[in-house]
């Protein structure tokens, strides 16, 4: 079988805090996302999963600076683009599904205006064409009575519906790549399942590559084709989701899996990451800290 060329190729990406002593946040992260693939980024808080997503989108907080490596989208290095060229790529080729549907929609703007920002800015759509497109987008994400929803303000609709609107907005410009930054974390479990199914469906029908950031291995099992496990800004394991979840080779992945509560395995409960695994990882990081990561 021929391996298709990667859509997104992150190669040796490092990032650190801008302020001295430049604490490293990402250490030579490498990962590929193929066209039409959902790639999971998993790790505990602070592992750097969101930092990778933000680096791809060019929305790293001011305090963080990339300090090495490349992020190539279909061959173009995003880190080397001028702001104007990057603005052209953003939205049309990469889009974001944000984490918290409560803060991701502006409370003072109507749904229609927020949903169609991209279409107006990048496709120059106006008037009836824009309205028709907006209705079609909401129908795609299975929102009943789209005409009425478009006239609402965010506080007038439910969290699940907001997340659907954000998904519709992300797909509105038919991007090649979507960064989904913990898109279901803020939702309750039933809505979560619907939203996951929706992202999967939209992604398949559009043939979009997705970087799926999450800390929930249950979610990963449901939606991700491949998977990268991060710890302390470092890739500890990478590969096919099914293979990794069935037989994790790195002790950290194994510990992470063990820490996931499962109802088919009674009595296991929550277990912390074993101290010897944590110690080994810390030692690995420390060794790395002496290497290129700390000084780039």
């Amino acid at each position: 079988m021929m391996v298709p060329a990667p859509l997104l190729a992150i190669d040796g990406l490092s990032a650190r805090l801008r302020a001295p002593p430049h604490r490293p946040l990402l250490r030579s992260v490498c990962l590929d996302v193929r066209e039409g693939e959902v790639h999971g980024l998993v790790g505990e808080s602070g592992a750097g999963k969101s930092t990778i997503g933000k680096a791809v989108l060019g929305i790293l907080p001011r305090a963080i600076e990339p300090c090495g490596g490349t992020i190539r989208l279909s061959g173009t290095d995003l880190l080397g683009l001028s702001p104007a060229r990057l603005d052209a790529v953003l939205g049309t080729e990469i889009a974001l599904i944000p984490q918290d549907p409560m803060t991701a929609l502006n409370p003072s703007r109507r749904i229609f205006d927020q949903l169609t920002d991209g279409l107006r800015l990048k496709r120059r759509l106006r008037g009836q064409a824009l309205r028709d497109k907006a209705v079609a987008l909401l129908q795609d994400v299975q929102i009943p009575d789209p005409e009425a929803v478009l006239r609402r303000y965010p506080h007038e609709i439910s969290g699940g519906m907001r997340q659907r609107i954000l998904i519709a907005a992300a797909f509105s410009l038919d991007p090649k790549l979507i960064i989904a930054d913990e898109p279901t974390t803020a939702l309750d479990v039933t809505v979560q399942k619907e939203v996951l199914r929706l992202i999967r469906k939209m992604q398949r029908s559009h043939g979009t590559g997705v970087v799926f950031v999450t800390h929930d291995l249950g979610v990963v099992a449901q939606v991700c084709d491949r998977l990268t496990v991060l710890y302390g800004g470092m890739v500890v394991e990478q590969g096919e989701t099914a293979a990794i979840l069935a037989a994790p080779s790195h002790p950290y992945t194994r510990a992470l899996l063990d820490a996931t509560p499962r109802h088919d395995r009674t009595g296991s409960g929550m277990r912390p990451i074993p101290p010897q695994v944590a110690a080994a990882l810390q030692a690995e990081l420390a060794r790395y800290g002496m290497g290129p990561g700390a000084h780039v």
Partner: protein
Amino acid sequence: MVERALPEAAVMATPLAEPAIARRRFAGLLAVFREPRVVFAGGFLLVLLLAAIFAPLVAPHDPLEQDLMLNTLPPAWSADAEPGYVLGTDSLGRDVLSRLIYGTRVAFTVAIVAALAAGLIGTLLGLLSGYFGGWVDAVVSRLIDIWMAFPPVLLSILLVAVIGTGVTSVILAIVVIDWTRFCRVVRSETLQQAKMEYVDAAVTLGTGRGKILLKEVLPNVLPVVVVLLSLEMGIAVIVEAVLSFVGLSVSSDTPTWGGMIAEGRQIIYQAWWVLVFPLVLLTATVLAFNQLGDGVRRLTDPVLRR
């Protein structure tokens, strides 16, 4: 993992029926009348504003007309009051009520123009400083720190003394001093807004920074600015009164509350009303501006809103 199929409709929240939305929007408008602070303070200020605009029609006498035969007449309810002089006359026989009404003109002109101008400058600098950060923020923030180190009343007296008296100078002095109030608050609000995910989302669409500031940030900062405007109008009324009290506001032949207080102070034992009425009106006006601001804040603050 147990896969349990839920019917689509059960998971998706049913949208509110259209009439319900319409009713809620209407209720939002009516809510203004359920906030007593806004009704009473706003009503009082509206009456004063109308009196100021239509002063020549409302005032019973010419505020400058002197009649030494009728000097220091007591208010209407005293035994030796003269009909037609409701709040009495001052030492030159000028009608206190008419002078109060004309004094409202200066007070409100200064309050409205100065607050709007200070609000405009402060909001603009606050937005830029909070959103762009870096050296812009450093410059604006240090400027505010320096500004805050000056005692405001002394600075305004100094300013007016240097640039000369008159309504324009008074307004200028207030704007120059009080833009920092707006700037500090708007800056911190903007910092909060800039962290919101919808700002990130706009950036990932490739939206220009100016557009983000205008469309995503400004509308959410505006309620605070409106509240500050109301408070600032109260402050402007005080500053104007202080400046006219020390004779640095408009020329002495234009009636002002501060000027009346200064004159009344000299004859407090012979005619208390010349001092007390402008003082009461001044206090009530400032209180009304503050209450109006508080009421608007309660209306726009979702936590305080019932």
